[in-house]
């Protein structure tokens, strides 16, 4: 221990200063603060979109904390439904914890989509940020699997049929589809074995995969800083405006988190997440059953392809179209690379617009078509 800590007498503030000095000697807090103060964030009319990565991160943290709380009472396997029933109706504020987890999951997916499209239209995937784009896509994919696996865990009728239908998609992949799907499902039907597996996936395997990608993604943002939209980048340096990361941007970021927390609190408490009747393999599917909104677009495309091209062919075609779309989406840093001429930039813009409006249109169509 630093000798200065032991000197007497001392006022409270100088003792706090001495403790700070002791820690600072070892961890260089002052250097870290100086770095945070030097760091700047571009300020322009599109700067609002910079907050959506942070909002996604906020909802992810809510997922971790509320998920740990649910873990205290949730029992996978045969008792899954009963344990969620207890959480919802028996444990004090259990309904609120579950409601917050479900609502925050939906808000997180929404924030992630807004983040992705804003990054796309700011062309923030261009050099040197390609790995940010790809790690973000990996995080998006895992977020969707988080949503899909978490949806089954209460084992009510909606969870049961949504998972049943959802698993038909990988099952239709030629040759390996059935084998893989049966492995994931733990048999040919959804049973308590399936909830046990999805539980392991949802609370152990996915977090273990997700966290390193998240750390990499956030580190890249720190390394490269916020990307400027091309219009801003075209301006001469002296015309560009910036604000300090700390405390200015940081304070605004916290403000957005507070706003997000308030939105979540209102939704979770005024619209508590419902629990349907227990899944029954002999009961017929409830009328109007549909996937969560973030799977609606894919669901509708597959449905429509199935209608236009009856039989397995329609399903294959749907999967092929989706896979192609995803490949193009992932390759966009190469299609619209930095320094390429305007033709490619324009192509990327159209790809983005097709993606946004295509997803919006098929989602709305999906709800219309129920």
């Amino acid at each position, binding site marked *: 221990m630093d000798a200065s800590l032991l000197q007497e007498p001392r006022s409270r503030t100088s003792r706090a200063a001495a403790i700070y000095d002791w820690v600072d000697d070892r961890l260089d807090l002052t250097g870290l603060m100086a770095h945070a103060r030097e760091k700047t964030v571009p300020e322009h009319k599109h700067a609002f979109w910079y907050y959506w990565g942070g909002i996604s991160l906020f909802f992810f943290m809510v997922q971790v904390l509320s998920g740990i709380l649910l873990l*205290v009472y949730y029992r996978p396997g045969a008792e899954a439904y009963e344990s969620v029933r207890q959480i919802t109706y028996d444990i004090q504020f259990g309904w609120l914890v579950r409601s917050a987890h479900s609502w925050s999951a939906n808000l997180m997916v929404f924030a992630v989509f807004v983040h992705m499209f804003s990054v796309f239209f700011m062309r923030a995937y261009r050099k040197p940020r390609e790995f940010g784009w790809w790690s973000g896509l990996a995080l998006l994919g895992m977020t969707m699997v988080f949503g899909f696996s978490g949806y089954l865990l209460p084992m009510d009728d909606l969870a049961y049929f949504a998972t049943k239908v959802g698993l038909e998609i990988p099952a239709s992949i030629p040759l390996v589809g059935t084998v893989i799907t049966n492995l994931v499902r733990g048999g040919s039907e959804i049973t308590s074995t399936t909830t046990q597996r999805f539980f392991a996936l949802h609370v152990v395997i996915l977090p273990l995969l997700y966290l390193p990608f998240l750390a990499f993604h956030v580190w890249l943002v720190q390394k490269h800083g916020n990307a400027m939209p091309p219009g801003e980048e075209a301006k001469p340096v002296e015309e560009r405006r910036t604000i300090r990361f700390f*405390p*200015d941007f940081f*304070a605004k970021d916290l403000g957005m988190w507070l706003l997000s*927390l308030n939105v979540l609190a209102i939704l979770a408490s005024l619209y508590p997440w419902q629990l349907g009747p227990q899944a029954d393999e002999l009961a017929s599917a409830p009328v109007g059953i549909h996937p969560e909104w973030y799977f609606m677009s894919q669901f509708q495309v597959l449905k429509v392809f199935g209608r236009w091209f009856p039989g397995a062919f329609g399903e294959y075609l749907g999967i092929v179209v989706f896979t192609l779309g995803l490949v193009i989406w992932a390759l966009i840093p190469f299609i619209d690379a930095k320094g390429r001429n305007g033709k490619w930039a324009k192509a990327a813009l159209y790809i983005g617009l097709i993606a946004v409006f295509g997803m919006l249109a098929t989602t709305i169509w999906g709800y219309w078509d129920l």
Partner: protein
Amino acid sequence: MINEDAINDILRSQDNDDPEIDGSKRSFLWMGVGAIGAVYVGAIGYPVYKYLATPAERAASETAVNSATLDGADKLPVNSALMFKFGTKPAMLIRSADGNFVALNAVCTHLGCTVKYNPETVRIECACHGGVYDAKTGSNISGPPPKPLTKFNVEVQDGRVLVTRA
């Protein structure tokens, strides 16, 4: 919502020493931020506490139980013991060789292991650290236990035994 401009003013004033914001205004604003923060901590902390404390609160109402009815226990063979739950805690009903009933708390007073009636030594023993109790009175005879086992009242009725807090 907290006034964002006000916070920015405070944060900026710390290193700029903006003369427009004097010390008392600054400390008042910080107090407001602290108070609102405390409301949030309470609004999240209280439900989380109640959520986690539900089983403990239920257990507390169960330990308030003052009696246990043991159906058929009047036929308990002599020199044997019957384990039962008194509220949330294990307890034992012992019938001694002379046919008398004794009911005792079965939680060792040393470190909380569940004790066992030994019909050969006619004593109650704890396997964890070798505590020994008298089977008639519950008093600690040897080993680490600091206190005797709590004794309950026993009332033998037709077809059952009623155990109540002494």
